[in-house]
C-alpha cells in the first residue's frame, strides 16, 4: 500500500514556521494556528500572522510572543531537578530470554554479560529503595523487565507481594507493570496480573509471519501463535490488568495500519509503535527512507483514530491518544522521560541505571540499590541530558513536546528521527484542533487514558 506523504519540509530547511525554534504555524480547516514552543501553548491566529511574524525583526517577534502570556519567565529553565524521590523502578529480574530477537537492546536478553537471574535480596532491597521516600498517599510503580521477566516468575510474584505489603504499611499506592514477550504467560499468571492490576505490555512486532521473522525462538521457530494462545486468558478476561501491544518498527514490519487494526480487533487495551533506531545489529535499524514511510503509516493510523474519536468509537492507538492529551495539556518537558530523575532500571545484581535500557551500560550507571544512588552521577546525568544542552534540539520548535528523544537511542545512534517526530507532532497538532472543535468533551474525560510508555 502506498500513502501520500504531506509536504512537511522534511527534506529542506526553509519555511519560517519549521525553522524558528520559538513558534510553529500550522493550518486546519478551522483556520490558522500557532504553537508557541515555550509552554507548548496553542493559539488560533489571524491569517496574516505567519507572514507578518516572518517580516518582523527579532525584537518585534519577541515582544509579540511576550504579549501572549502573563509569565515573565520561560516555562522551562536550565536548572535540572534536584533530589527527586524515586517514583518508579524497573527490575531486570531475568537477564536471559527464550527468544532471539536480533535487534534486542539487551542483546538477546543478557545485556552482553553472562545470563543470570535476580536474587531475592536484590529485589527486596530494590523495593525498600522504592518505598524509602514514598510518603503516605504517594503513588509508585514497580516494573518487571528482562530479558524475559517470566523466566524468573517466583521472584516477580514474591517482589509484587512484598511491595504490596510495604505500600499498605506506609499508606501509599504501588502500581505494577511487566513487559513480556508473552510466550511464558500461564493461566495463573493471568490471575496474578489481574489480582494486582498489572499493566502488561507484550512485545508483538507484526501479524503472523512478520512477527515470527523478527521474534523467533532461539531455535528459529516462530512465536506468534504461541503468544496469542498464551494471552487468551488475559485478553479474554478483560479484567483488572491492562494489556498493551508494543510494536517495535523495523524496516521489516512497516505495515502499521494492518498491524494496528488486527491487534485492536484482538482486544488489546492499547497498541503503540516505536521505531527501532538503535539496535546492536544495524541491519534492523530504521534509516531516513524507512522513517519517511513510517510517518506516512502513522498518519494513516492517526486519521483512522481521529475518525473513531469523532464517531465516539474506541480505537486505542496509544501514540495518538497520548499525543492528543499532552498537546491539550500543553505538556512541556525538559526531558523525554523520567529516566535518571524519578525512574531507574535495576540490573540482576542490583546496579542502578538511568532506565531499563541502560542496564549494564556504563553510560547510564547511577549507583546500586545496596549503596544507593550516586548523587554526582545522577546530577551529572540530569545536567547533561537537559534538552537545553542537546543539539540540534535548541533550534527545534518541538523540543518541549519531544524532550530530546530517547536517551538510549540518542547516545548510541544520534537523532535520525527528528523529522519523523516533527511530522508526527504536526499531524497531531492539526488533529487536536479538529477534535477540540468537534468533540471538546473528549478532552474533558479523566486522564485515565493509556499513556505511551
Amino acid at each position, binding site marked *: 500500500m502506498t500513502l501520500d506523504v504531506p509536504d512537511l519540509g522534511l527534506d529542506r530547511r526553509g519555511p519560517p514556521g519549521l525553522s524558528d525554534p520559538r513558534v510553529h504555524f500550522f493550518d486546519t480547516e478551522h483556520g490558522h*494556528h*500557532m504553537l*508557541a514552543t515555550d*509552554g*507548548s*501553548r*496553542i*493559539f*488560533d*491566529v*489571524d491569517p*496574516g*500572522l505567519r507572514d*507578518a511574524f516572518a517580516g*518582523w525583526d527579532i*525584537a*518585534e517577534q519577541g*515582544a*509579540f510572543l511576550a*504579549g*501572549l*502570556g*502573563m*509569565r515573565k519567565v520561560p*516555562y522551562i529553565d536550565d536548572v535540572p531537578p534536584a533530589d527527586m524521590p524515586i517514583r518508579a523502578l524497573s527490575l531486570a529480574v531475568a537477564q536471559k530470554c527464550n527468544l532471539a530477537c536480533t535487534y534486542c537492546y539487551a542483546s538477546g536478553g543478557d545485556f552482553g554479560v553472562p545470563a543470570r537471574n535476580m536474587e531475592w535480596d536484590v529485589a527486596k532491597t530494590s523495593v525498600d529503595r522504592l518505598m524509602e521516600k514514598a510518603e503516605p498517599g504517594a503513588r509508585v510503580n514497580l516494573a518487571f523487565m528482562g530479558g524475559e521477566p517470566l523466566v524468573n516468575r517466583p521472584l516477580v510474584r514474591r517482589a509484587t507481594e512484598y511491595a504490596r505489603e510495604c505500600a499498605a504499611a506506609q499508606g501509599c499506592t504501588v502500581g505494577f507493570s511487566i513487559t513480556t514477550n508473552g510466550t511464558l504467560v500461564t493461566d495463573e499468571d493471568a490471575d496474578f496480573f489481574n489480582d494486582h492490576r498489572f499493566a502488561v505490555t507484550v512485545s508483538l512486532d507484526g501479524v503472523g509471519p512478520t512477527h515470527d521473522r523478527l521474534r523467533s525462538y532461539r531455535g528459529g521457530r516462530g512465536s506468534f501463535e504461541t503468544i496469542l494462545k498464551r494471552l487468551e486468558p488475559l485478553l479474554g478476561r478483560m479484567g483488572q490488568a491492562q494489556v498493551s501491544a508494543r510494536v517495535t518498527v523495523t524496516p521489516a514490519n512497516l505495515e502499521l495500519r494492518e498491524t494496528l487494526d488486527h491487534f485492536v480487533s484482538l482486544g488489546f487495551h492499547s497498541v503503540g509503535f516505536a521505531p527501532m533506531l538503535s539496535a546492536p545489529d544495524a541491519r534492523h535499524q530504521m534509516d531516513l527512507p524507512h522513517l519517511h514511510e513510517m510517518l506516512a503509516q502513522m498518519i494513516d493510523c492517526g486519521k483512522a483514530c481521529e475518525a473513531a474519536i469523532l464517531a465516539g468509537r474506541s480505537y486505542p492507538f496509544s501514540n495518538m491518544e497520548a499525543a492528543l492529551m499532552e*498537546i*491539550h*495539556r*500543553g505538556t*512541556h518537558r525538559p526531558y523525554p522521560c523520567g529516566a535518571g530523575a524519578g525512574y531507574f532500571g535495576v540490573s540482576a545484581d542490583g546496579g542502578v541505571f538511568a532506565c531499563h535500557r541502560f542496564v549494564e551500560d556504563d553510560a547510564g550507571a547511577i549507583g546500586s540499590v545496596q549503596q544507593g544512588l550516586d548523587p554526582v552521577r545522577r546530577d551529572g546525568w540530569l545536567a547533561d541530558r537537559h534538552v537545553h544542552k542537546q543539539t540540534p534540539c535548541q533550534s527545534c520548535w518541538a523540543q518541549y513536546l519531544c524532550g530530546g528523544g530517547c536517551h538510549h537511542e540518542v547516545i548510541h545512534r544520534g537523532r535520525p528521527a527528528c523529522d519523523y517526530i516533527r511530522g508526527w507532532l504536526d499531524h497531531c497538532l492539526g488533529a*487536536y*484542533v479538529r477534535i*477540540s472543535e468537534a468533540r471538546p468533551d473528549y478532552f474533558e474525560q479523566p486522564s485515565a487514558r493509556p499513556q505511551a510508555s
Partner: protein
Amino acid sequence: MTEPYKKLEVAPRNLTARAAYRAAGNPANTRLDSGVGNCFPGLEMDVRDLDRRFFPGLVFNAVRVPLNPAPDAPKRTEGFHLVFVDYMYDPMLPANSDVAWVRKLLADYTGEVADRLAEGRWFISSIMQGEKKISAYKRNGEPIDGMTVWRFVRSLEPGEKSPVTIALERREHDGEVKEDLIYLQAPRRQYRTQDGVFDGAYQPGELTQSLCNPWSHDFRDCGCHYWPSNHPDVVMAEVDETEALPTGQTADPMAAETYLDWLRNDRGPAGDVAARNTVEENRPYQIDHYQVNQMWGELPIVVEGRETGTFYEAAPDQSFVGPYPDRKAMIDALGAKLAPLELVLTMQYLYAYFSLADPEQVDHARWPALKDDLIFARRAILGVSIGEMTHLRWANQMLWTLQGPDVYEPVITPAQSIRTGPDPSQNYPRTLSPLTPDTLDRFIEIERPEGFIDRAYARCVATMLDRKEYPAHLYELAVRIDTDGDEHFLRFSHMKQILSKYPFKDGVAPYLRPLTPDTEGKADAAMANFHKVEAGLKAAYTAEAKGDMAAAQASIAKVRSAMEDFREEGEALAAEGIGIPFWPEHQA
C-alpha cells in the same frame, strides 16, 4: 517601535495557553492579583478594629476631631470613646474564673460601675502600664484626636505580666468632667491566640466593618484613604515634554507643579486648578456617582505622582553633577557650608512662620478662605523648617560617620550668608524677614531644583556612589536630603500661588502680622530656650557619634521640650509684633 502585532487577533486554545493568557479588558476570570484594584494587601481587615477591644469587656471607637461641628453639638467628642460594655462572651472573662482581676472586672461590669457606664459619654482619660502613663489630653487641655490615642493603644504590651490600668471619664455636654473617674485594670488583649486565630471576642464581620466596598464608587467615596495608595487623590498634571526649556525644565513650572484633584470633573486644561486643601472642599468639583460609573476607565494612570497620557516618558536626567574630588573635600563642604546652611534656613523659615497671622484672628467676613489658607501656609512652612532641622542632623550624621567620634565636632553654627545659584554673585546675607512675596520668592529660589543646595547634595550623592568607600546608609541619607529639596520647592511654590490672591502693599497683607526683631530684651526667654536647643543638639550629636544612644535620647528629649516652649513663646511674642532676634546683627 510601533506595535504592529496589536492589530492581529490571537485566541488561546489549549490549557497552558488559556491559563496564562493576558485577557483584554477586565473579564470575570481576571486573576485577583492582576486586577486594577480588586485586590490590595491590607484590605483583608482593618487593624484598627483589633484595638477597639484592647481592654477585656469594653468596646471603644477612635473618634476624630469633627470637621464642621454643629454649634449645639456636644463638645470634646474626640478621643477613645467607650461604645458599650461587652463581657458576656469575652474569652478573657469566663464567668467561673477564679483569677482575681477577672473576678474584679466581672463584679464591676455587673455592679455599680456598669450602672455608671450606662449613662452619658465615657472616654479614656489616661492609660497606665508599668511606670508609663499616657494622658489622652494635650498640654493645652484639649483631648487628643482618637486616631492618636489609637496609636498609643497599639503601643501597649499584652500579657498578664504587664496589666494595663485605664481611667474612664464621663464628659458632660460642654466637654467638662464632673464625676469621679473609673479605674479598671486588666491585661491588654492578646489579639491572636497561640494557634494564630483571632480572639473569640471579635464577632463575624467586626474586623472588616470599617472597610469599603472596593469598586468604582470608592475611587470617590472611600473614607479610610486606603485607595489613594494606588489611586492617588492629588496628582500633578501631564506636561508636554516637547515644550520643555533647553535646560530640561518645563516651560510652565507652575502648571507642571500644581497639585490637581485626580477626580476633578472638568478634565480640560481650563479645569487645571489646584486641588483644595480638604476632601470636603474638593467634593463639588469631582465627578459624581453616575459619572464615575462611566468614567473610571478614563481616570489617568499616575506615574511618579504625575498623570500620564498614552506614553510615559521618564523625566530627563539632571545635568551631570560630578563627585567631590575626595573624602576631605566632601567633609569640608558638609562642615563648612551645608550643615550651617541648613541651620540658617531653619531659623529664617521659623521667623517667617511667626510673621503669618493667627488663623483665628483674621477677618473672616472679608476673606472667607483666609483661615484655611493660613492653616495650610503655616503648616507648610513649619514642615519645611522641620525638614531643614532633619537635614542638619543628617549632615552631622554624615560628618560623624565620615570623621569618627574622636575628630567630629558638632556643627550647630548658622551660616552668615546664603547662596542660591552657581554664580558667586548669587550670595545674600542672612536676614530675618516676614513672609512677604519677595521673601517667598527668595525661599523658592533657594530650594529650586538644580539650585546651589540641590547641586551640592547631588555632589554628595555622586561621591558616595562609591560603595567600597562609603556605607550604604550614608548614600541613602544624601539621596533623601537631595530629593527633599524638590518637595520644599513645591511647597513654597504652592504657598505662593495660594497667597498671591491676597493684596500686598507697603509691607502689609491680610495674611501677615507686623513683626520686628526684638531689641528690648522682651525675647530673652525665647532666645534662652533657643540656646538650650543648640546646646542640647550639640550634646546629643556628640553622644550619638560615640554610640551612646541613651545619652543622645535624653538630650533630644530636652531639646523637644525646649522647642515646644520656644514655639509657644514665639507665638505669644509675634502676637505683640515682636520677632525673635536670632542673630547678633539683630540684637540690641
